[in-house]
């Protein structure tokens, strides 16, 4: 696998190219890239044939060990790699430890292990165990075992512990990786830890930047889950800038998690190359549809999101967005989606997932075009407006509500 970028300035939006994948040699991906989030080997709610209706282009999938760990014994005994076992062999996969869509419980630390949370409880993962699993999965890319259990509230002691043990984990993983015959076609990435502590980040970076790696995962900023979308950009901007400034420009930078689109744009402007579709998945689980790409001039969607729990869509026979090219918008109305969500039918989330993932793939396409045209800043302003619009609407609604309550109380 190879990553190339024309960027010479660190901390700037850039276009890159991922090529020469061992398993699928003719696959190429342009960055900034969004990985398609999977859980249990599948894109949530979408069977493979439906996923193919959503996109016919090559895609890279993000896979979490926590949602697939229970499959590893079968895979090992049957001598089958992950891509083949889940029936997704035509897609490149990237394995992470935790599920970015659900909150990773903090704590439960013991020396030499990482707690892995599965639906059947907690498993203690050592380096040996981890690399054994990796040899079974044979992912195209994966992150070395790391302790990313830090966030904005972490103590200095916790942060330094996470940096320290992650370095030890990496050292051991890398030795095993380098000598493994089974992992000849897999790329290992190092996780930069250090929470929000610049000194700790520096230690982590100084250790990893000497290693012959294709890139890094910027980890330790949050504990995953849907609340990541509420982290304001300004909270992470400084520490990301510090991190990327110290990392070699030409290397790949990955940031997983449910970042909202505004934060994604900020991170791209700082030089992050790879994200994942946790955000549209979380939005789907909330029975919401993304509308932030809608053009303001000829579309009724003022805000960045619409929620199908709202009764106002019950008799709205227009699509989510009249300009959207997705299968959902081409075939179904808001009224139908509202009905499906209202009666809790499975098809509701299928259709929302199709729309939301489509929107996100489009979002990244538009971002790349804007970087190439050097207009990302204007685009960012436009998207920002969409999000502000929603807040305005919400504020107005709250205002009307309070007015109504006042009227009734009178």
């Amino acid at each position: 696998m190879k990553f190339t970028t024309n960027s010479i300035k660190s901390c700037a939006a850039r276009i890159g190219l991922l090529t020469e994948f061992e398993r699928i040699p003719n696959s190429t991906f342009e960055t900034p890239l969004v990985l398609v989030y999977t859980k249990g080997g599948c894109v949530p709610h979408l069977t493979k044939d439906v996923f193919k209706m959503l996109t016919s282009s090559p895609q890279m999938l993000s896979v979490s060990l926590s949602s697939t760990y229970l499959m590893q014994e079968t895979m090992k005994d049957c001598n089958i790699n992950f891509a083949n076992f889940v029936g997704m062999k035509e897609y490149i996969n990237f394995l992470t430890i935790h599920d970015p869509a659900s909150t990773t419980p903090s704590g439960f630390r013991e020396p030499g292990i990482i707690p892995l949370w599965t639906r059947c409880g907690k498993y203690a993962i050592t380096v040996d165990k981890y690399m054994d699993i990796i040899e079974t999965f044979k992912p195209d890319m994966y992150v070395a075992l790391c302790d990313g259990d830090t966030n904005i509230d972490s103590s200095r002691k916790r942060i330094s512990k996470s940096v320290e043990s992650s370095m030890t984990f990496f050292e051991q993983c890398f030795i095993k990786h380098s000598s493994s015959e089974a992992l000849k076609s897999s790329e290992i990435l190092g996780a930069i830890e250090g929470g929000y502590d610049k000194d700790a980040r520096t230690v982590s970076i100084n250790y990893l930047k000497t290693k012959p790696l294709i890139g890094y995962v910027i980890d330790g900023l949050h504990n995953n889950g849907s609340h990541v979308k509420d982290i304001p950009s300004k909270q992470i901007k400084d520490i990301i800038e510090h991190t990327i400034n110290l990392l070699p420009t030409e290397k790949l930078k990955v940031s997983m998690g449910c970042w909202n689109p505004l934060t994604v744009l900020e991170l791209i402007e700082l030089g992050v190359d790879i994200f994942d579709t946790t955000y549209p998945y979380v939005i789907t689980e909330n029975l919401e549809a993304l509308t932030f790409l809608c053009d303001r001039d000829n579309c009724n969607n003022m805000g960045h999101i619409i929620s199908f729990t709202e009764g106002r869509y019950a008799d709205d026979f227009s699509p989510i967005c009249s300009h959207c090219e997705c299968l959902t918008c081409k075939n179904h109305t808001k009224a139908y989606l509202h009905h499906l969500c209202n009666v809790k039918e499975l098809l509701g989330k299928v259709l929302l997932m199709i729309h939301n993932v489509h929107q996100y793939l489009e979002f990244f396409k538009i971002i790349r075009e804007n970087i190439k045209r050097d207009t990302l800043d204007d685009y960012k302003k436009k998207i920002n407006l969409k999000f502000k619009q929603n807040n305005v609407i919400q504020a107005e609604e709250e205002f009307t509500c309070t007015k109504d309550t006042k009227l009734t109380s009178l």
Partner: protein
Amino acid sequence: MLQQGKSPLLFEIFYECKTTKARAGRMALVHHHVNTPVFMPVGTQGTLKGLLPQQLEQLDCQIILGNTYHLGTRPGINILEKAGGLHKFMNWKRALLTDSGGFQMVSLLELAKITEEGVKFKSPYNESDCMLTPEHSIQIQNIIGADIMMQLDDVVKTTTTGPRVEEAMHRTIRWLDRCLKAHQRLNEQSIFPIVQGGLDSKLRSECANQLIKREVNGYAVGGLSGGESKNDFWKMVHLTTNILPKNKPRYLMGVGFATDLIICSALGIDMFDCVFPTRTARFGCALVRTGQLNLRQIQYRKDMRPIDESCECSTCKIHTRAYLHHIVTVETVACHLLSVHNIAFQMKLMKDIRQSIQEQRFPEFIQQYMLDLFPNKEYPSWIVDALETVNVTLL
């Protein structure tokens, strides 16, 4: 056919089995044609358990069901009317059939009471008194706009005996006439009467004989598949199809197990429906010729075969039992994958039935099927008896 306008249902029988009462034909409906004998999957609330209309077309479904009671409650008739009917609301371009709403009311609502006027019930939402009359049922079904509608019938539990069965049978006939009178879209939709009469041959015959005097495009056999013995079940089907006119389609309500589909096709039934294939999918069960696989079971953990090696569905082409075992009841995708397979299974079975009727080898098809199902030839006696009456002796 009738002189007035074009008929919303034209039924043609292409092949008749020379041994059994089975027939293979085609119904031309307003939205789509339907090859018979047909199995109709149930899409209760305007959707078929997580599958896209495109997937149903790929599975070769030509007609699906909607439930009037559920649709009338949510999204409600106003919304469906504004949408221009259920076809447009759910974007399903092929044929639809709706039930009358009566069965669900009686089975779902404890407080439902049947009077001559209609079914009286308390709204599950606001406790107010409501009444579903035959006229009201047809009015709702006219708005939903399905190609085939069901008359409101007086439903009694299948195992009920005594005067209540007779009363229900007579009332069903009276309600049919009210339904036919209320019907507003004669050129687009057909009403099927429902033969009732419990497990009493005399009442069944009387009901069927009364109903065939009405000018309709097809008939349903109701009140079966509700916990009665298989012996009673097939006899009622046999008796009813003997009375119903040959040139109209016959629909056996609520039947969908593979064995029942084969035997009742042999007894002259053309249409079937059942929630079973999609319901069992949600519980992690996959249909195969010899029964069903419960994929939650530990024995499938390392089973690298598809559900069925000979199945052409996308689930069997892509996934193993082992993978499905790991995601059943965890990921909604598992449910979709099993629904795809189970519907494909039903469609394939019906296609095999139609083809063997066409090629005049339906009796051999039945013999082989039953032998595969009971390799030690310990056939249940009802199967042996039912098939004997249509001149098929098992191997």
